[in-house]
């Protein structure tokens, strides 16, 4: 019976997929349930997925213990600045690399792409000294500085703009349009979906940025969500109820955004693979 085999096969496939999904989800489940578990119950060894006496006291304590809204706002400011700068530089440079010929073009393009192979961590120390010399320690500019450009963004915008037919640009030129006008009124409107994907990638990157903000920021009022949670963990090392409640608070906006924008986020984050 072919159908019996098909059912067996389908069961096996779902078995594998469900087991993997369970392993992926369990840490999130534990994060949430631990945050609702009274401290005394956390410290009794037993395997539970739901507390016997759920409580929200950890949240009450955590919300008062750190300015989470402030951290959230700081993260929004930095990632917006990063996204705006990356969208501007990537679209303009991508347009020029895609649609013009000029001496030195290929060399400049190779330099832009070549630096993408070099991890930020490897030149972070001199970078810190540069930022310090500018007086940008403990400022928004300081956090955002390494996030203003993205090699991949330029490459991606170039690949996207190259598909826009030259005839459209030539037609605009016959009508007397300048190159800047073409960039603003022809290229940008036609690149909306690529720009959207790139914006999501930029925001995701800067949202998760941790090591650099930790180095450049010591002023509590400028902490990002990541930094705020790390410092919170340092203060309440073994108070798992509180630190998981803090984690839920920082994870919530990210997961909400992901569930709403899931398609574009998955596309944005994996953009880099499309060229393969």
């Amino acid at each position, binding site marked *: 019976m072919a159908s019996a085999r098909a059912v067996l096969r389908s069961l096996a496939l779902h078995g594998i997929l469900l087991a*993997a999904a369970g392993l992926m989800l369990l840490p999130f489940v534990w*994060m949430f349930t631990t945050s609702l578990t009274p401290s005394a119950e956390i410290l009794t*060894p037993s395997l539970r997925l739901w507390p016997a006496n759920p409580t929200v006291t950890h949240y009450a304590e955590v919300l008062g213990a750190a300015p989470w809204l402030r951290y959230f706002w700081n993260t929004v400011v930095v990632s917006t600045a990063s996204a705006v700068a990356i969208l*501007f530089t990537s679209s303009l440079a991508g347009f020029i690399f895609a649609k013009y010929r000029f001496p030195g073009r290929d060399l400049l393009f190779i330099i832009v792409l070549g630096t993408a192979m070099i991890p930020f961590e490897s030149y972070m120390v001199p970078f810190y000294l540069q930022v310090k010399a500018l007086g940008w320690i403990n400022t928004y500019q300081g956090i955002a500085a390494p996030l203003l450009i993205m090699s991949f963004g330029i490459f991606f915008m170039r690949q996207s703009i190259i598909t826009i037919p030259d005839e459209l640009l030539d037609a605009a030129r016959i009508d007397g349009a300048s190159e800047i006008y073409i960039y603003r009124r022809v290229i940008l409107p036609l690149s909306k979906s690529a720009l959207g994907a790139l914006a999501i990638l930029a925001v995701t990157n800067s949202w998760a940025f941790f090591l650099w903000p930790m180095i450049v920021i010591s002023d509590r009022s400028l902490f990002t969500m990541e930094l705020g949670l790390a410092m919170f963990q340092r203060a309440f090392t073994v108070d798992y109820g509180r630190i998981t409640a803090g984690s839920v608070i920082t994870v919530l906006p990210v997961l909400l955004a992901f569930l709403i924008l899931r398609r574009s986020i*998955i596309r944005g984050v994996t953009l880099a693979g499309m060229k393969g």
Partner: protein
Amino acid sequence: MQELAARAQPLQRGVSRRTLAIYLFCYAGLAPTLFLFAYLRIIPIATTLAASLYNWDMIRPIRIFVGWGNYLELLQDANFQTALANTSILAAGSVVLGTVLALLLAVTVNARVWGAPIYQLIYFLPVVTPWVPVTVVWKWIYDARFGPLNQAIAVFGLAPQAWLVDERLALVSILIVMVWKTLGYNLILFLVGLNNIPQEYYEAAVVDGASGWIIFRRITLPLLRPMILFVVVISTINSFNVFTPVFMMTSDIQGAAGRLVRTLVYDMWENGFRYFRVGYASAEAALLLGAVLVLTLMHMRLFREDR
């Protein structure tokens, strides 16, 4: 039309006024981007390479040229040796496990099962979750006395383990978190790769009577090679730069009771920002950079020769 597009004008004797205007637009338009690249990337990279040859303390302004001195000292440095060994193990482990597991899941998801988009969504959750909350919850999972993992293995009659305290287990624990965090990313890339394989190839193979395993080995794997290479390169670079999980879960600064899993970036951060040894940390950074470049080029060669 000719004078409209600069591409129609190769560099000949005279360059028309129109072409000059185009050049001007190109250079002016690229100027902000190139300035940022120079200031934010090229200058600090060059400074790193130059600083690695100096004995340079962040607190005092004196720099003494020491040539290869920092590199020679690094090779003798027990902390650096540990960091290099740990980083290599974590990188190798997470690249192999992350690639193989993601490939298996991708083929399974791709087998047109019901609910595939939901599975993809779930597998992608750890990817979008930032590192710090991830490490907070995993530290709790690994907690030796009350953590869920020890309670879970007790159900199977296994003795509790000191996950983040024992030297080897700590490395394994960090590796598990790294694979958990990146699996969904690799998976999505493989799904993109699988979608790009023309359906006719599979149909032709089925007509020829090929079995599932043969189809996988003869069609799926070879055609997926560019994507596998990409995943391997990306995971190598990412795992060589691992910092947040070891810092959050095993370092004394974050109040870990356990043993520090020292990695290259952690050691570099410590030399640079705790001991303020700019030159020494730069030499370490230069070695990290070299290692990442060599590994990337090696992967590219390896996969090209196989073809």
